[in-house]
């Protein structure tokens, strides 16, 4: 197995991009990544693209071909593969790209992710996202995604005394980080009261506890570590790529408040990178809902189980805190175009580790981690990055 590096990154702005189509946004992200890597297009060996639901959101399947074609790579017959794992599609596409390069099968690989969610009405989007849960035994009973995470939140509050204010503090912190990210969907500060007074979606989660519906695309260029310096002075190395499955249905988990796929993926990633949670300087975690960030920082060992809410309220996970979480603004403020999210997390790692993160730059970051989850925890994928 070869070591793998990221030699270029690109990302669109995230938001309601009414004037741009699915193919417009992935081309924008891909071109940006290729330009960032100083690569000639003809050198690309393969494409992997994360996309959850082209079929439901834009009535388009066969996304791999579409992307190769509109990237101008169909003429070179570059193989292009769509990867799907609900909201973890992007993280998995990155992992497939890494495996392809590490194995020696390909040298230069683009791993991207894209989702166009605002071309359909909100009910259709809600239903398409509900397909990430068990349609036959959760969805049919009226389970929505906010509903499932609300049940995690309710039990977390019951077991650990987590409060609505602590949940809200995740959103407040991520919005603050978003103010420093020019590509974020929301670049405004919000207050705890604003979260608590926002419309209830699924008790105890308010609309400001939820990540938004977004359009966006992101891409990275991968190369074998041994040739990465030919392209860039600042390659960022993949220290670990780990993936784990959990039960599709939330009700089948041994503990509703623990995403055991996250625990398993984290343990594998730490072992692979030869690090412990203490060595991680910063992370992008899957905060599709505020409770999800609290579970994530607990399940990956940054804080003890049950203490995630308090740690967030105390500022431990803000920029300037002990372990900054979601410096991009996270899914909550940067936005959550589901197939793009896992790749956008990697883009944020690269910008931070290169020292190119602008106003949100954190000091002295050496090792970062991304955590991307599909559904209520049926899939978890974790990557560790270093300079």
């Amino acid at each position, binding site marked *: 197995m070869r070591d793998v590096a990221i030699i270029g990154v690109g990302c669109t702005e995230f938001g309601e991009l009414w004037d741009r189509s699915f193919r417009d946004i992935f081309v924008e992200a891909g071109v940006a990544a290729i330009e960032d890597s100083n690569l000639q297009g003809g050198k690309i060996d393969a494409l992997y693209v994360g996309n959850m639901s082209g079929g439901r959101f834009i009535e388009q399947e066969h996304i791999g071909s579409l992307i190769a074609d509109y990237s101008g790579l169909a003429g070179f017959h570059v193989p292009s593969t769509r990867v799907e794992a609900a909201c973890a599609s992007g993280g998995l596409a990155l992992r497939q790209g890494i495996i392809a390069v590490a194995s020696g099968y390909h040298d230069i690989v683009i791993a991207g992710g894209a989702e166009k969610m605002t071309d359909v009405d909100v009910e259709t989007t809600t239903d398409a996202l509900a397909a990430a849960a068990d349609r036959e035994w959760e969805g049919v*009973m009226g389970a929505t995604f906010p509903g499932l995470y609300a049940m*995690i939140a309710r039990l977390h509050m019951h077991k650990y005394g987590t409060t609505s204010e602590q949940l809200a503090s995740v959103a407040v912190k991520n919005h603050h980080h978003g103010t420093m990210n020019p590509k974020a969907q929301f670049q405004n500060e919000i207050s705890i009261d604003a979260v608590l007074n926002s419309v209830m979606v699924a008790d105890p989660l308010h609309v400001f506890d939820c990540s938004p519906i977004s359009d966006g695309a992101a891409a990275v260029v991968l190369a074998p570590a041994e040739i990465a310096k030919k392209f860039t002075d600042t390659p960022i190395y993949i220290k670990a790529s780990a993936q784990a499955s959990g039960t599709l249905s939330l009700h089948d988990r041994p503990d509703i408040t623990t995403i055991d796929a996250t625990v398993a993926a984290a343990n594998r990633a730490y072992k692979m990178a030869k690090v412990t949670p203490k060595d991680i300087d910063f992370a992008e975690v899957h905060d599709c809902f505020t409770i999800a960030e609290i579970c994530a920082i607990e399940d990956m060992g940054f804080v003890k189980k049950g203490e995630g809410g308090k740690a967030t309220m105390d500022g431990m996970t803000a920029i300037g805190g002990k372990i900054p979480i979601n410096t991009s603004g996270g899914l909550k403020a940067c936005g959550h175009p589901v197939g793009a999210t896992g790749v956008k997390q990697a883009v944020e790692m690269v910008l931070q580790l290169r020292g190119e993160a602008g106003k949100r730059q954190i000091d002295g970051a050496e090792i970062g981690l991304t955590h991307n989850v599909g559904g209520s925890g049926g899939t978890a994928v974790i990557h560790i990055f270093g300079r």
Partner: protein
Amino acid sequence: MTVARFWRRLKNMYNLIGTHCEKCGGFYYPPRNLCPKCRRSSRSVPFKFKGTGEVVTYTIVHSSTKDFEKQTPYILAIIKLDEGPSLTSQVICDHSDIHIGMKVRSAFRKLGEESEKGMLYYGTKFVPMESRNK
């Protein structure tokens, strides 16, 4: 959901029929052909659950998919059946009464309808144990 997809699960949904693995003694609802503990050596047989259990966690859904719009707000819950497995369903009770640990029993209820003139879907919801409402 298409008629066939719904129809083939009716006996399970109406009667709370899951599976029991005769090899390890595990109980599963929803039904599983393969017991996750014994996998290929599992001996799964249909098993009708009593329908009594306890609320593990719950939420009140205010914003739903189209199919459930008319029912909002409704209580969605994970219920642990007395025999062991947990499932996702709705609890029909006063919203101020729902709590973690509430004892509940199954009840045959309408789940939804395809459209105003479309077919009605029925299935198993839950009511508080002390409720006389059958």
